[in-house]
């Protein structure tokens, strides 16, 4: 079975007067419907790993394959297309746009897709409403981020990540700004995404997230030091 995401011997070095190496020779395969948590202390390279997996950063060395396709040298138009169609992102800070309501924020997840259906603003809205229903916010459609709780904001962000039906959802500390009750709801939601085949990769410190996932990848100093492969 082809991995949806595959890193082979990936290194990432930030150039400068004192170069920083954030990833060192990382090999990692993510499969469909797999729920992976990446753990490690601050500065261990977790976020850089997530950005390289999400094509937001190019590796300094090594190869990145998405559904078997080598992407590390693709031009911007195609990388952006991959992000629009294949990947969904969830961030610690939610990154919702304050002056847009929940539906408009979620519809942004379809704005840059090329398919004809998604090009229609009404179809984008309808899909956004459906995605908000799935995360339990059917009654908060026209609320703006300022009118929503932190947990609700993160649920809007998850709806935005999945509205384009990605192969993989990449989440960076999704519970970092939430209390434990709201965090638990978010973990449940993320874990539930795998049910329809979506792979989920969560980068976190939060041990509660780790407990809900199948596979744990442990990082330190830019290296993967442990990977249980989901065989707990």
């Amino acid at each position: 079975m082809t991995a949806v995401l595959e890193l082979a011997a990936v290194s990432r070095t930030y150039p400068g007067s004192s170069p920083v190496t954030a990833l060192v020779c990382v090999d990692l395969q993510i499969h469909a419907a797999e729920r992976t948590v990446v753990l490690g202390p601050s500065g261990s390279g977790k976020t850089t790993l997530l950005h390289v997996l999400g094509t937001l950063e190019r590796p300094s060395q090594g190869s990145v394959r998405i559904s078997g396709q080598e992407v590390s040298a693709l031009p911007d138009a195609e990388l952006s297309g991959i992000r629009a169609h294949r990947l969904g992102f969830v961030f610690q800070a939610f990154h919702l746009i304050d002056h847009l309501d929940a539906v408009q924020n979620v519809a942004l997840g379809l704005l840059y897709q090329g398919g004809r259906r998604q090009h229609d603003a009404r179809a984008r809205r309808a899909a956004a409403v459906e995605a908000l229903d799935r995360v339990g916010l059917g009654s908060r459609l026209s609320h703006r981020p300022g009118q929503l709780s932190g947990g609700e904001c993160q649920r809007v962000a998850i709806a935005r990540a999945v509205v384009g039906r990605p192969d993989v959802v990449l989440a960076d500390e999704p519970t970092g700004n939430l209390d434990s009750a709201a965090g638990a709801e978010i973990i449940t939601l993320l874990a539930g995404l795998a049910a329809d085949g979506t792979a989920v990769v969560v980068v976190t410190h939060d041990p509660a997230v780790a407990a809900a996932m199948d596979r744990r990848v442990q990082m330190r100093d830019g290296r993967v030091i442990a990977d249980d492969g989901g065989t707990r």
Partner: protein
Amino acid sequence: MSAGPVPRSRMRARDMLGSGLLGLRGRALRAALSAIGIAIGLAAAVAVLGISASSRAGLLSQLGAEGNLLTVTAGQGFDGTPAPLPLTAQPMIARIPPVESATAIGYVSGATVRRTAAVPAIDTGGISVLAAQPGLLTTLGGSVAHGTFLNAANVNYPAVVLGAVAAQSLGIDRVSPGTQVYLAGRYFAVIGILRPVPLGPEIDEAALVGFPAADALLGLGGHPTEIYLRAAPDQVQAVAIVLPFTANPAEPEGVQVSRPSAILVARAAARTAFTGLFLALGAVAILIGGVGIANIMMISVVERRAEIGLRRALGARRWHVGAQFLTESLLLSLFGGVAGVLFGAAATVGYALAGHESAVVPGAAVAAGIGVAVGAGALAGVYPAVRAARLAPAEALRSS
């Protein structure tokens, strides 16, 4: 699972416009403030062009649109009073084929006009007494403010029509049956007051009586001193050449022909000299407005780094992000431009209404103004858009 080639990231122009509008709406106050510079500049430019076009339109209607009014005089006598023209002058001139209308006035020398006989004779108020024909207003393009003008029924009687300035200095602002003035030793009934006549300022300071009355009561002798005429617009020069011989065949060299509209045209040209200055000021305001928009957009790029990162994560290409900022900048300047044109047009209409002129808002100025505003917005938006597009997504996302 979706396999195979991935479609490129794409975005329709309509969505780009929608994103730009939503982006501006989220910062409406700031957007409005930053569009003000452009609006002021354009309002100034449109108002200046509109006002000068309106006053030119007013002038053209005064000139009969063609500037075809000519005056004929016989020069001045030794004492500075106008010299008389032959009795035949006006009928002869009216017989020149391209002459559309001709009317004569005769200067009554030594006559004064006073409110009553009790006013000392020396207080003439600078009002001259002119004999006039009923066709005067048609030829000069004048009109009556109150009462009636001279006509076939009243030219034989001691009736007088006052020019606008003359009426003012006599303190007469309306015509009632008993209104009289003391004119050359007897009372004349005031039958009308004129509006100012731009092409014949001498009429404004005159008291007009009929030729028969002037002959019978004031001893004019029927000699005109000045003839106003309108010629066919394309024949004005030709008519001007033959006028001296027609007006006074015995002494053509003494006859002076002038074209009052030439003076008005020169005056209008002097007024449009300021137009250039105001347009330059408007251009400076638009420039400053553009710099203001560039400034706001730069701040916006810095403030919205996280949004830029997010949009890239959602699949926006570099140029999608750049185009969004450029769209916002263009929309800002477009709104500023439209607001400016509306203000400028309103100022023009207000000016025209105040001056009883017809308002003209030149379409070319409006189109060019909006074009300039949008151009300024495009220039202002380019650098911020490039900055936004160049931002590395991972770096942008880290800066929340």
